[in-house]
């Protein structure tokens, strides 16, 4: 008989060991899956995890790692703050879209003027758009007690329809022969979020992601707001006695994570993506939730988790190309990662005992 006994406090050792174990278990189970599909499991794991970092043309792929991880890290940094307080923003994808739309709209309104003020204005517009989209569930929660999980998720679909409308309507490229999609911001120097060092993959969005990690670290560890967030998450009832105003906390967490997601969308549309199209959002807002948990809601963890997720995407595409693995197998592989992580979380909060538990 296996018995689980709750630990008095989460184990520090296991909270760091489980992500590593989860990655190893994923490699094992994923390798088995690839073997069943007729691929050499060792080669598949090598193609996914090793080749993008150290194989042929790794110079290019290391840069792509930052491009792919940048938005994930920026969004996850904001989400982690809310998650610690038990405030569940599931709609980062929508905030990302609205941020991108607002940022792109500023640039397209200014086109073709060239000015050093355009890019900063886009940054502000992107953050503002995401903030507004995050504040809607916050206000509804505070005013009517609506679940922020459902409201923020539903607003993703609203944002997607707004995106389609904008791509086919007001933001459509007037020089595009009636085809959907905006002008390409990569060809508009004042608005282009270019790589800061050519070939490095590091653009302003990556810098913002790192800054957000440092900022949230300081907030959580050196600031009274961080203490309140922690208390609200760990002991909601006690939090009131510690002077936490729940409504203000909800607004702060959803607003912050919304603004950072909006920023991520804006940096993406002005840089690697370039265009507002109806399918411009590639699911970063949802993947960032996985990144936040994989990183244990901790800044250093999120940095590593973001890079790891990016690696599985890039390596996954590579495995499709060179090993002919189907895309679905790669998605299952990524799903396994989250599955093992959440499963092994048990070890952080419980000890496993064989035989009858002693009270």
């Amino acid at each position, binding site marked *: 008989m296996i018995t689980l006994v709750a630990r008095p406090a989460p184990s520090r050792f296991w909270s760091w060991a489980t992500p590593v174990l989860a990655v190893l278990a994923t490699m094992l189970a994923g390798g088995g899956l690839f073997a069943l599909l007729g691929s050499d499991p060792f080669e598949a794991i090598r193609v996914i995890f090793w080749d993008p970092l150290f194989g*042929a043309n790794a110079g290019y792929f290391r840069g792509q790692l930052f491009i792919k991880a940048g938005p994930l890290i920026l969004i996850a940094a904001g989400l982690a703050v809310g998650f610690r307080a038990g405030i569940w923003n599931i709609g980062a994808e929508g905030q990302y879209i609205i941020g991108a739309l607002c940022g792109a709209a500023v640039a397209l309104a200014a086109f073709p003027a060239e000015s050093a003020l355009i890019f900063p204005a886009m940054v502000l517009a992107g953050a503002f758009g995401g903030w507004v989209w995050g504040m809607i569930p916050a206000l509804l929660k505070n005013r009517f007690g609506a679940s922020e999980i459902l409201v923020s998720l539903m607003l993703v679909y609203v944002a997607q329809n707004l995106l389609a409308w904008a791509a086919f309507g007001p933001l459509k490229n007037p020089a595009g022969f009636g085809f959907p999609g905006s002008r390409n911001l990569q060809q508009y120097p004042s608005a282009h979020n270019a*790589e800061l060092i050519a070939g490095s993959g590091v653009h302003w969005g990556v810098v913002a992601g790192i800054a957000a990690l440092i900022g949230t670290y300081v907030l959580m560890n050196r600031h009274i707001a961080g203490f309140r967030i922690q208390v609200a998450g760990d002991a909601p009832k006690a939090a009131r006695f510690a002077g936490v105003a729940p409504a203000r906390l909800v607004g702060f967490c959803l607003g912050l994570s919304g603004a950072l997601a909006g920023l991520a969308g804006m940096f993406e549309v002005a840089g690697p993506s370039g265009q507002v199209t109806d399918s*411009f959002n590639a699911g970063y807002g949802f993947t960032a939730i996985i990144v936040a948990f994989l990183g244990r809601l901790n800044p250093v963890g999120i940095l590593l988790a973001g890079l790891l997720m990016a690696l599985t995407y890039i390596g996954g595409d590579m495995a499709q*190309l*060179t090993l002919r693995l189907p*895309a679905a197998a790669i998605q299952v592989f990524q799903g396994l990662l989250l599955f093992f992580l959440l499963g092994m979380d048990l070890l952080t909060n419980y000890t496993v005992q064989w035989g009858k538990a002693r009270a």
Partner: protein
Amino acid sequence: MNRRSFMTTTAITAAALSLGLGRAAWAADPLKVAFMYVGPVGDMGWSFQHDQGRQAVEAAFGDKVITSYVENVPEGPDAERVLTQMALAGNQLIFATSFGYMDAVMNVAAKFPNVRFEHATGYKRADNVSTYDARFYEGRAVIGTIAGRMTKTNKIGYIGSFPIPEVVQGINSAFIHARKVNPAVEMKVVWAYTWFDPAKEADAAAALIAEGVDVLMQHTDSTAPQAKAQEAGIYTFGQASDMGAFAPAPRISSIIDNWGPYYVARVGAMLDGSWASNGSWEGIGAGAVGIGEISDAVPAEVKAEALALAAAIGAGTYHPFTGPLNKADGSAWLAAGQVADDGMLSGLNFFVEGITAQMPQ
């Protein structure tokens, strides 16, 4: 050119040069050809048909070619990375099979001048970038004719994906030919704003059926509308692939994307060194658009009429957009006997007279 883009160009040129030097040594090796798909190859629609084309290339050239593909690539930053991955992996001919890949193709093609790119349904070309598309409106004329004959309620439904020229051509062509054989026909249009989303497509089908439509056409790729039509006991047409599982009814025929002939021709051109950038737009005549088997639910004389129309279009003796035709607002478009040229069609953004549905703006 600012400093950043100059530095980028320099770095990439160096990378491309080293790649170009590398390739000379592989001259005797098989030609590597890669395909990038927007959906899963199992979508049984758009991406599935492109993958059939890839398999036709393998069948035609055997071990002279090595093909590979990446599926489910979103139309955003990932497209550019995957195209670069393909070029770096030594592929010399790369097919990008969705409209939204256009700017990514142009960016990557500029960095790899020795790699040839083929972009489906786009309008930007370069020395190493071709575009190709199929004249789906030719097939729509044929199934429009069948639809006009088969409707009892005189209401034909059309599930549009996006209001872009290709889709507008199809709606107009289907309507013109349905009306030609049945002057009482009305066309109801619902925009699904998706290429592939079974739930949305089923909703669109249900809405049209509720309006009294008894023949349904679709420019979206899933079989969800077929299933809805089966429940309602009305007729449909397969889209992109044959959707033969729903024959003989509700699916009474289909319009099939057949990319194989073009892919085989282009890979052949690579092998004999005659590849040059072009803008290909083929139809029924070249086999790019196929009409799936017309089922027994359709009377023999209607079937004969539809096949005769397909033959005339294929032979080039009849063009589906032949005047006199007016725009929906009543203004003149084509004079009697005038044929729409490709420039008009590739920017088509209005309905023809008789369609009362609104074009979304």
